[in-house]
């Protein structure tokens, strides 16, 4: 197991290098000049422009610029934002908990609803529930996220007034950041109603962000379950006189989990990187919004560093999924 882990960590190196190179190249291919953007409408003198040009190292050949960046990254220095003058690392970790909290809530919501729904659909294959669920899942999968978000806001925030429109918590409450997770911090603060407020702010973004993973998980669970339910060992389990709950929920589901875990892992990856729309709509102060703003400002270090960190998170999630396989199916453990 340890050897397998080390081998997997080694494969991270080329991926890591690739991501570094691509993010470095990608932002420079975009038209636009960070210095001009910084200057804004006021403009700046030729001398000042040349000075900044040298300061950011743009006068060096691209290969040298990349080498300087890469050696910095390997020493844990992701650079400093052109705009805020703060280290990219600090900015990322100030905002990342918000994204992580939202992503985790969304994936938990997607699993909690999608997994049982997929199991029930498979067990009742071809019946009303199955058809209704699969059609709903298809709609959920194909729906434009921004439209779905606006629809929910209009109904639940506008008409019914049950949920807030944006932000992470009501402005009434102020307490120090301890973990960066609003749910935990608000509960720790001990202020009356703070936790409830944090929860109410999370509901709509969670549903919006969780909708696509929910549909994907439900469909994947159903198809994996259908395959497993026709296996000989399911007949054996039923021949033992076990209850349908135990046969379907333990004997079948455990075997069906491998492909489901795979899509869950992939979903977590896309959630971390893809919360951009949801964060923008709900003014959620996470890395999605931060990345979009940085791209518009041509803030090279932030875009490079942000992409690299997000890619690292996705790699870690994938590794976790691979390790989980072995826990679920001992046969895979043996092959490693």
């Amino acid at each position, binding site marked *: 197991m340890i050897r397998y882990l080390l081998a997997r960590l080694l494969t991270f190196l080329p991926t890591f290098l690739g991501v570094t190179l691509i993010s470095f190249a990608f932002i420079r291919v975009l038209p636009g000049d960070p210095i001009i953007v910084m200057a804004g409408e006021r403009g700046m003198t030729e001398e000042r422009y040349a000075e900044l040009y040298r300061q950011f190292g743009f006068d060096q050949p691209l290969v040298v610029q990349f080498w300087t960046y890469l050696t910095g990254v390997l020493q844990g220095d992701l650079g400093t934002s052109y705009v805020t003058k703060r280290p990219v690392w600090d900015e990322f970790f100030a905002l990342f908990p918000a994204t992580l909290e939202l992503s985790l809530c969304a994936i938990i919501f997607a699993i909690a609803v999608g997994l049982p729904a997929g199991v029930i659909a498979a067990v009742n294959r071809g019946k009303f529930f199955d058809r209704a669920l699969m059609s709903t899942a298809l709609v959920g999968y194909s729906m434009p996220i921004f439209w779905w978000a606006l629809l929910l806001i209009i109904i639940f925030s506008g008409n019914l007034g049950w949920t807030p429109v944006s932000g992470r918590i009501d402005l009434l409450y102020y307490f120090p950041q301890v973990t960066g997770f609003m749910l935990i911090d608000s509960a720790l603060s001990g202020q009356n109603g703070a936790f409830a407020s944090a929860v109410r702010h999370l509901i709509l973004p969670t549903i919006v962000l969780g909708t696509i993973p929910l549909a994907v998980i439900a469909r994947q669970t159903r198809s994996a379950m259908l395959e497993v339910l026709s296996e000989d060992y399911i007949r054996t389990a039923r021949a033992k006189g076990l209850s349908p709950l135990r046969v379907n929920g333990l004997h079948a589901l455990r075997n069906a989990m491998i492909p489901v875990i795979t899509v869950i892992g992939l979903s977590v990856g896309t959630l971390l990187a893809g919360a951009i729309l949801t964060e923008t709509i709900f003014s959620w102060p996470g890395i999605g919004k931060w990345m979009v703003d940085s791209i518009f400002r041509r803030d090279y270090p932030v875009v490079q560093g942000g992409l690299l960190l997000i890619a690292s998170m996705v790699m870690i999630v994938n590794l976790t999924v691979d390790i989980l396989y072995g826990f679920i199916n*001992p046969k895979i453990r043996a092959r490693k």
Partner: protein
Amino acid sequence: MALLSIRNLSVDFATAAGSFRAVDAMDVTVDPGEILAIVGESGSGKSVAMLALMGLLPWTATVTADEMSFDGQDLRAISPRTRRRIVGKDIAMIFQEPMSSLNPCFTVGFQIKEGLKKHLGLDARARQARALELMEMVGIPDPARRLNAYPHQMSGGMSQRVMIAMAIACRPRLLIADEPTTALDVTIQAQILDLLTDLQAETGMALILITHDMGVVAETARRVSVQYAGQKVEEQQVGPLFARPHHPYTSALLAALPERATTRILPTIPGVVPGQFDRPRGCLFAPRCAFADETCRTTPPPVQPPEIGRARCHYPLMQEGRG
């Protein structure tokens, strides 16, 4: 009183091309402690009939019967929940493919103990003791270590032994073995059959052995029921059946045994079992039968009296040996 009594059992499958009858008017009677062999080639409805008894058929199947009772209890009338208290406890079943019949995600011990907890309510310590005892009964060496093994760590013969241990865990009164040796090596086949007959003698349970192998029948069974295209065509004690088969199909099956061959090339039965679309009007065996005439092809045959092996035939064979 018979332990198991099934009369006029029919099973139909709903398929995309209409309904298909897999079991047609089948009768099965088993007395306590008896060994009954059900013989027939692939597609003759042997396994489906037994799965219907266990309630293990998929939802596309429709089961009808005039009688289906176990130990005096009508299995047609009880709820699935009540049936699950009988299935796995008083009636147990083992299957053809031992390797795929065990769940790859759980240890052997877990899968054996599951039934003990559900049906007998044993505590953890009692379950462990009984599981060890069962593993010894089915001849698995080093049982304590094997209980923690996963199915992929075991051979086919070993897996079938585990399946048997699992099946007899709650001391069933009827064990159904559905082609238990077909997927195994020849040397292992004999071991598993010996194990089954030994266990049967030891525990006094009844045993239904489903097979297509007449050699297996001769070695183990006392009574034999021959099945063809969903129907029972003949039923006799094993000795008389081998000596005087009354149905031409039984006779042809026996003639195909290598031990009985008189020519260099083994005799075969031409053709295949009729399927969904080519079911004959008269006797189902008529297209493949050497003795069939116009009556056989147009009129379904009567069932002959017990002296003539309940043969479903217009012209049952009466002389010694081959017809």
